[in-house]
């Protein structure tokens, strides 16, 4: 029998400190950008009733959800995305008058994916939902916020593709296709399979201009010129409105200043049961999947009893991370305190004082003598060592400046003088700073030493 305890299951990963630091930094950068657009953070449960996610036209099919049962036999599922939960929350818990609602979230989602390769079963998404507006300004805002976030994490070379599901819906409505043929056509257009499209359109008895438009759909991508090609004679109302809508979103994004990043792709037709209008995906070099995706989902809120327009975007943090994996991890180096026998109390006191001033301080707990501690410090990212003796003597070894200073704990902490004083603080955070502090508090000194820099 195999022993699995040393392994993680397929599709889930540990994230070690160096990578975790970058990941948290990305998350917090994205958080700041979204929140600067007025989005408020929410949390939803990690699992909910399966029924919540399984509604008509759910974006994620049931074979992609992790399911289990509660004690009454009801089916639960780990959240496969946030949007559904947030829509449920907004429909059931929030006053209608409060619209538009702007929510942001960060957290892990879970999907049963075939994991032969890079597909994860647990991954982090950071996203926003703008609920309560049918206007193109809402779509444009969400897309713009997502692009701001992507740029803020340091990705400059990306492409945001926007499409319109309703335009395709208008075309197939006009062609009079049944559900099964629509799905076939959608699949083939989405995979730009012109051969497959022709086999379907050949059988259709429709306006030649519409037929050609359907055949050309996979190639209707690029800049604003796409609109000219798409506005053919004979478009029905649905398609026309959809196109006007997309054009407006595009214009607004240009006004945001994103013209060089945005392109149109009318052949982008994923999740058409779920999305009802605009749909977008963001791509960059170095990762074979979109780093961000989203769209308008006007039908979802209605499923929870409160029909409203809504649009959202989700950024795949793990994918961003893989693009930025060569990004430098600028760790702030820590100080290491080595307390001689019976000097622990003084050591803890120094550590506390440095920490409240924003320095990173490690206590040496290796059990060895000072030379062992030095060895340890050299193997780690330690900027300075503070050796404390029971009589209060303190020797500071600054590795970055190659300086050794002998002082006392009291002097270092500024306890001995009643007056305000300037002191050179060798906290080891790698910066020189003069600090002003007030003495007298047992465990506190007010200082603007700016160690957190």
């Amino acid at each position, binding site marked *: 029998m195999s022993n699995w305890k040393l392994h993680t299951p397929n599709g889930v990963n540990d994230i070690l400190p160096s990578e975790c630091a970058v990941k948290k930094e990305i998350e917090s950068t994205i958080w700041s950008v979204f929140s600067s657009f007025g989005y408020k953070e929410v949390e939803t449960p990690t699992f909910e009733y399966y029924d919540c996610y399984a509604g008509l036209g759910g974006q994620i099919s049931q074979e992609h959800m992790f399911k289990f049962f509660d004690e009454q036999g009801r089916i639960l599922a780990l959240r496969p995305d946030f949007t559904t939960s947030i829509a449920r929350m907004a429909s059931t818990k929030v006053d209608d008058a409060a619209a538009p609602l702007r929510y942001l979230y960060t957290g892990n989602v879970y999907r049963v994916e075939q994991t032969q390769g*890079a597909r994860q079963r647990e991954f982090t998404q950071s996203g926003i939902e703008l609920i309560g507006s049918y206007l193109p300004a809402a779509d444009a805002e969400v897309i713009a916020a997502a692009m701001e976030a992507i740029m803020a994490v340091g990705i400059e070379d990306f492409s945001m593709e926007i499409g319109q599901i309703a335009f395709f819906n208008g075309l197939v409505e006009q062609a009079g296709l049944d559900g099964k043929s629509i799905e076939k056509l959608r699949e083939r257009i989405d995979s730009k399979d012109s051969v497959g499209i022709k086999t379907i359109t050949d059988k259709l008895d429709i306006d030649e201009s519409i037929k050609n438009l359907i055949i050309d759909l996979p190639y209707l991508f690029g800049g604003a010129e796409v609109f000219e090609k798409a506005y053919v004679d004979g478009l029905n109302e649905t398609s026309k409105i959809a196109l006007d809508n997309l054009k407006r979103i595009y214009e607004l994004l240009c006004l945001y200043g994103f013209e060089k990043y945005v392109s149109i792709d009318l052949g982008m037709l994923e999740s058409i049961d779920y999305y009802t209008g605009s749909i977008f995906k963001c791509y960059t*070099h170095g990762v*074979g999947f979109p780093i961000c995706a989203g769209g308008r989902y006007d039908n979802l809120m209605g499923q929870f009893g409160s029909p409203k327009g809504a649009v959202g975007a989700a950024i795949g943090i793990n994918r961003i991370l893989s693009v930025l994996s060569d990004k430098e991890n600028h760790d702030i180096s820590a100080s290491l305190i080595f307390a001689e026998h019976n000097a622990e109390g003084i050591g803890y006191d120094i550590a506390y004082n440095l920490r409240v001033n924003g320095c990173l301080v490690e206590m040496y707990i290796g059990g060895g003598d000072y030379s062992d501690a030095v060895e340890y410090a050299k193997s780690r990212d330690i900027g300075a060592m503070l050796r404390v003796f029971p009589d209060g003597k303190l020797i500071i070894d600054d590795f970055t400046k190659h300086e050794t200073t002998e002082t006392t704990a009291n002097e270092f902490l500024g306890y001995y003088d009643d007056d305000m004083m300037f002191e050179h603080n060798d906290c080891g955070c790698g910066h020189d700073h003069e600090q002003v502090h007030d003495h007298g508090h047992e465990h506190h000194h007010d200082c603007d030493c700016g160690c957190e820099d």
Partner: protein
Amino acid sequence: MRYLTVALAKGRLAELAMELFISIGMDCSEMKEKTRKLIFTDEVNKMKFILVKASDVPTYVEYGAADIGIVGKDTLLEDNRNLYEMIDLGFGKCKMAVCGPVELKGKLDTMTNLRVASKYPHIALKYFQDDKGQTIEIIKLNGSVELAPLVGLSDVIVDIVETGKTLKENGLDVLEDVCPLSARFVVNKVSMKMEKERIMNIVQKFKEQIEK
């Protein structure tokens, strides 16, 4: 300029694909030499060609390890990856078919518990269950599939038929056609967006070559 990477299905398909690339002005001389190398570079056009097993081509392309792939439609159908399937290259033509003893011709629909052996379990399942609405038992094999009906492992097989010679020699016949097959030009979805001009340029030139 970035390299565009092309994944080619090892074997005859790769040779035909190389000829096509040469015809539009790519330098593939490296590949003509007898060598065990799996990666070839055209420095002038900034192209890289990699040789992989046919069934791995969609994987390389989906993950973006290759921007472009040349692979048979059979592999694409079996794998069902998220890719752009841009051109039918027109070579490597054959078909996917249900084959078996000739006496079963026309009787498949009435058979319950049909046992189907195939190297392509997904294609077989999709054809019988989704298209025909018939529940079947799939037996996945990795080679010499023609043997299965002969030794009673299965009733029929779903396999690629080119000339039908192997079938005839083993006393089997084509019972039903599943779909026509040929080599396809597939593109990673991100590459299509990020390298639109270069890829569309190749697509355009290929189309012109094929129409010749």
